[in-house]
């Protein structure tokens, strides 16, 4: 199979196999080894997309990751937006379309797998071109562990797109030999289709391996589609090559305008002729091999336009032999053609002045403005750059001791230089980690004819007779962002002096390609406009990721249920079986409420509340944080961390406590039981358990290491079941026959070890509802057994299970605060109306000194109060603001505080709320207002305790 634009005898595609694909609705064929871009060019499709801002036709500028234009969206076999046609490997059945800048995310879920691998090595080499291969080989021969990553489907880098010789044979023969040797070395890993996209702190390099994308629908489901490699290497060599730089001139964005080196790649790697009649516009020697190789493959070279007056003799001779005319000291000033370039406008260029223009017909305009080393990763590694005026580009200067560049990435553009550089970089890297071994000599290359230096040219001035549009209005700098020279000049005209600011003003360099073809050019144009040295101006900073990476790849296996651990209690299966709805509390799944058939949440919660206040109810409280405190100084530690006295607690008793930060603000609360003379067990808020343990360890380890105390988390060891309500004593008596449940024998805030349903249990008289209540603790293994035994024992009393919502209503009716809901880190125990929990006797504890700070003694601090809406059916939203007047004034509205908790109460037969209100305690009895849906809802400020203030219910 052949097409007019396939060059016989060139390229590495498999022409015996045809791949069918569809682009913009038309069916084409290509071959294995093609990219979408090469297959389109082979089919003479040049217009692949339209510019995002002006809708101008756009073609294919490059052959790799630097492509700014040819963005496509894959429609089938699986939708994926924003890929460059130049890096998209062709497969059978591909359906794609060109994108005008913005893609569309798939509506259906992605069923592919993504995963992550870790790699550790002595030397990481990024880039498998001549320098990278030479480095990897030299390192491997010393026995070092080497990882070599390369973005292309096969190693070789620039050698795939050239006709150069190594050791007298085609360069790819040497590549094959190197790969064979590396493959035989068990300490070397070569990863193709793998792009290193970020260099992070501590030298962690992340790379994206595309494992099955190139297989299309044939990709096996059990193989991850993409994999993130997390590579930790002692030394790193970035052999990332260089990107060719275009030159800005009028209408430099038309399809058919291509980088010269990319055209060479299309010929040599893909066997594709990107046109039939070409003009080559260059500022340096590198475009000549492209012109000659294309000419030899059958492309008519209409002219080589070289801005330099002096062209090396051997290029002149080689061109003359092929009948190619060189126009030295000339530039391309513009182009004709809408859908495709039809003519290049060529003029003499002397001392910045354009001479008379002449049109040269062509369907391909190749451009080379020199080469920019690919320094993104080196720069991310905090390597500094310096401007090299000889090549008009930024090259690596100083890097961290474990990072080097080699080859074109370091500004070395000859093959022999790259090979030597690779070997040297490997040797330096290994010597830095004290590893030595046999020296590897770089292979031989053909002697180089003398060259002439690059003439640095950022842009060609617009011809004088061009229309009256602003200077550079159709000279495109960033093709993807449709940003022009005129945009850059507007930025500098507006007073911007930094390339970072120009970048943000013009959006140049912010597209998927990260300004690979536009960044340095922008620095050059800005420097010219400001009359400063580009070396002083510098370039924009590089940040990861260097290439677009999908969130799916970054997430890897950590999605769905594996995204974050889900913690469930030992009784969880029972809750599921009995229809509980769940609430996320930290990582825990907690039963929220247990609706009966046809019941709304409101009805269910009112029913559960009624059961707890009038009969008996129980909940699963196992998620409470539990910390075991042991050691002779346990009491001393707790005295210093809780606001109240804990060391005086007697074995068998329970005390409620609050912990504050050094700033005096409440950070957690819970109960403390004294298990033994030298052992306490304390509980924390569910979501705060880890934080409280860390807090206690912090003080113990850093301030009071002399205290003999050990702390252990025992949260998951215990199942905790609050059994609540006036009939709870009756139920407990049935399951705990050895326990004297009489109030005198087992008073409030005491605990006893006994047997519950035949299981060793610790029962505490603790109430978080104000009702007679027991907290039954059993080892987690027996949780379900005891729970079910309680269900059975309670059935005669109408035992009801309740969830967190009911727990919240019950505790709020009693004004028991939830730290983190009713507080926000600016609330003291006194603000919560809990001065009683703050010891006056203790000489000091964490937070005490702050209580006497002037700020903490202000009378207008926000204090916890109750709010009763005048309309007892109105449920205030939590977080609602509170104001003083019934008219909502113009902003800024003076706000007195906010609603922290708000519920419907069965016991009060109305709605109620808790709130933090400025001078709240003094305002009890006042009417305040809560703006709600445009009206101010009147509320009465009350004492926070709205139910059973005298505590008559706690003993049953």
């Amino acid at each position: 199979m052949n097409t007019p634009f396939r060059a016989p005898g060139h390229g590495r595609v498999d022409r015996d196999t045809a791949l069918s694909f569809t682009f913009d609705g038309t069916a084409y064929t290509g071959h294995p080894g093609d990219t979408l871009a090469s297959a389109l060019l082979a089919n003479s499709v040049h217009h692949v997309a339209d510019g995002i801002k002006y809708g101008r036709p756009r073609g294919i500028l490059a052959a790799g990751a630097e492509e700014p234009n040819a963005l496509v969206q894959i429609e089938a076999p699986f939708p994926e937006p924003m890929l460059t046609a130049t890096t998209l490997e062709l497969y059978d059945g591909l359906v794609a379309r060109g994108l005008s800048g913005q893609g569309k995310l798939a509506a259906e879920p992605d069923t592919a797998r993504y995963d992550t691998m870790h790699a550790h090595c002595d030397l990481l080499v990024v880039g498998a071109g001549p320098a990278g291969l030479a480095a990897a080989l030299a390192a491997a021969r010393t026995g070092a562990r080497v990882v070599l990553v390369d973005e292309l489907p096969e190693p070789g880098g620039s050698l795939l797109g050239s006709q150069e010789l190594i050791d007298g044979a085609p360069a790819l023969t040497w590549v094959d030999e190197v790969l064979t040797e590396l493959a035989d070395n068990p300490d070397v890993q070569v990863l193709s289709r793998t792009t290193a996209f970020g260099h992070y702190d501590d030298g962690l390099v992340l790379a994206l391996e595309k494992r099955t994308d190139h297989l299309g629908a044939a990709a096996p489901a059990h193989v991850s589609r993409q994999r993130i490699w997390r590579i930790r290497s002692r030394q790193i060599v970035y052999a990332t090559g260089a990107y060719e730089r275009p030159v800005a001139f009028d209408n430099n964005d038309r399809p058919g305008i291509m980088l010269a080196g990319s055209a060479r790649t299309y010929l040599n790697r893909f066997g594709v002729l990107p046109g039939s009649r070409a003009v080559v516009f260059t500022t340096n020697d590198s475009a000549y091999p492209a012109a000659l190789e294309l000419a030899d493959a059958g492309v008519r070279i209409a002219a080589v336009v070289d801005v330099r007056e002096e062209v090396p003799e051997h290029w002149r001779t080689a061109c003359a032999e092929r009948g190619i005319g060189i126009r030295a000291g000339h530039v391309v000033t513009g182009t004709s053609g809408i859908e495709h370039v039809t003519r290049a406008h060529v003029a003499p260029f002397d001392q910045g002045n354009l001479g008379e223009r002449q049109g040269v017909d062509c369907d391909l305009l190749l451009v080379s403005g020199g080469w920019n080393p690919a320094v993104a990763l080196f720069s991310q590694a905090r390597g500094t750059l310096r401007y090299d005026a000889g090549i008009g580009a930024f090259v690596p200067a100083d890097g961290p001791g474990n990072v080097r560049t080699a080859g074109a990435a370091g500004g070395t553009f000859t093959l022999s230089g790259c090979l030597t550089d690779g070997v040297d970089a490997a040797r330096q890297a290994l010597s830095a980690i004290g590893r030595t071994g046999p020296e590897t000599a770089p292979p031989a290359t053909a002697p180089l004819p003398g060259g002439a230096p690059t003439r640095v040219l950022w842009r060609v001035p617009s011809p004088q007779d061009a229309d009256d549009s602003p200077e550079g209005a159709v000279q495109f700098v960033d093709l993807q962002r449709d940003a022009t020279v005129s945009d850059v000049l507007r930025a500098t005209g507006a007073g911007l002096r930094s390339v970072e600011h120009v970048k943000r003003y013009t959006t140049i360099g912010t597209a998927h390609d990260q300004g690979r073809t536009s960044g340095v050019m922008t620095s050059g144009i800005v420097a010219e406009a400001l009359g400063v040295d580009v070396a002083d101006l510098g370039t924009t900073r590089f940040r990861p990721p260097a290439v677009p990476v999908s969130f799916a790849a970054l997430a890897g296996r950590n999605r769905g249920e594996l995204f974050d651990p889900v913690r469930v209690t030992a009784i969880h299966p029972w809750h599921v079986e009995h229809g509980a709805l769940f609430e996320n509390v930290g990582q825990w799944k907690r039963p929220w409420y247990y609706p009966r058939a046809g019941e709304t949440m409101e009805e269910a919660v009112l029913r559960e509340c009624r059961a707890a206040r009038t009969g008996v109810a129980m909940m699963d409280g196992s998620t409470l944080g539990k910390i075991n405190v042991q050691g002779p100084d346990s009491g001393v530690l707790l005295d210093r961390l809780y606001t109240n006295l804990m060391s005086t607690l007697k074995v068998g008793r329970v005390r409620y406590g609050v912990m504050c930060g050094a700033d005096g603000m409440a950070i957690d609360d819970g109960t403390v039981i004294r298990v033994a003379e030298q052992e306490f067990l304390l509980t924390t808020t569910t979501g705060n358990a880890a934080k409280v343990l860390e807090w206690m360890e912090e003080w113990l380890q850093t301030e009071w290491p002399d205290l003999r105390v050990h702390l252990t988390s025992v949260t998951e060891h215990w199942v905790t079941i609050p059994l609540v309500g006036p009939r709870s004593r009756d139920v407990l008596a049935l399951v705990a026959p050895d326990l004297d449940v009489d109030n005198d024998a087992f008073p409030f805030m005491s605990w006893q070890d006994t047997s519950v349903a035949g299981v060793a249990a610790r029962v505490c008289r603790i109430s978080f509802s104000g009702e007679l209540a027991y907290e039954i603790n059993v080892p987690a293994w027996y949780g379900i057994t005891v729970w079910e035994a309680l269900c059975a024992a309670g059935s005669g009393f109408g035992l009801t299970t309740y969830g967190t919502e009911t727990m919240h209503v019950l505790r709020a009716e009693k004004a028991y605060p939830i730290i983190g809901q009713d507080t926000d880190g600016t609330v003291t125990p006194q603000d919560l109306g809990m001065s009683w929990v703050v010891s006056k006797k203790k000489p000091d504890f964490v937070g005490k000194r702050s209580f006497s700070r002037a700020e903490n003694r202000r009378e207008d601090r926000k204090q916890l109060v109750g709010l009763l809406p005048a309309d007892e059916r109105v449920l205030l939203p939590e977080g609602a603001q509170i104001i003083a007047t019934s008219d909502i004034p113009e902003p800024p509205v003076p706000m007195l505080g906010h609603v922290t908790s708000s519920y419907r109460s069965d016991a009060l037969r109305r709605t109620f709320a808790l709130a933090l209100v400025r001078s709240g305690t003094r305002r009890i009895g006042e009417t305040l207002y809560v703006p709600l849906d445009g009206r101010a809802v009147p509320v009465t400020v009350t004492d926070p305790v709205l139910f059973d203030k005298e505590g008559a219910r706690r003993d049953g």
Partner: protein
Amino acid sequence: MQLITCPWCGDREEIEFHYGGQAHIAYPEDPYALDDEQWAQYVFFRDNPKGPFAERWVHSAGCRRWFNAVRDTVTHEVLAVYQAGAERPAITSTAKGQEASR
């Protein structure tokens, strides 16, 4: 993702650790001998240098031990780790490169 060397467990990824702010800030001997401003200095004010900074870290997802580290706030490089209570090692400037710090 940085590696931090826990003095007890060795090199571990930074997500295993929690940051504890500036090191070598002792709880005042007698808080009640301080006026409000002096006390506020202890509670609220910390240094924020550019360069080496002695900090407290805790290996939360590991051995749960607190320790001190000197970290360069510009490069994030951890220049030294040492046990809580030990003297701060004399490090005044950033050693360049990873190998130098190991």
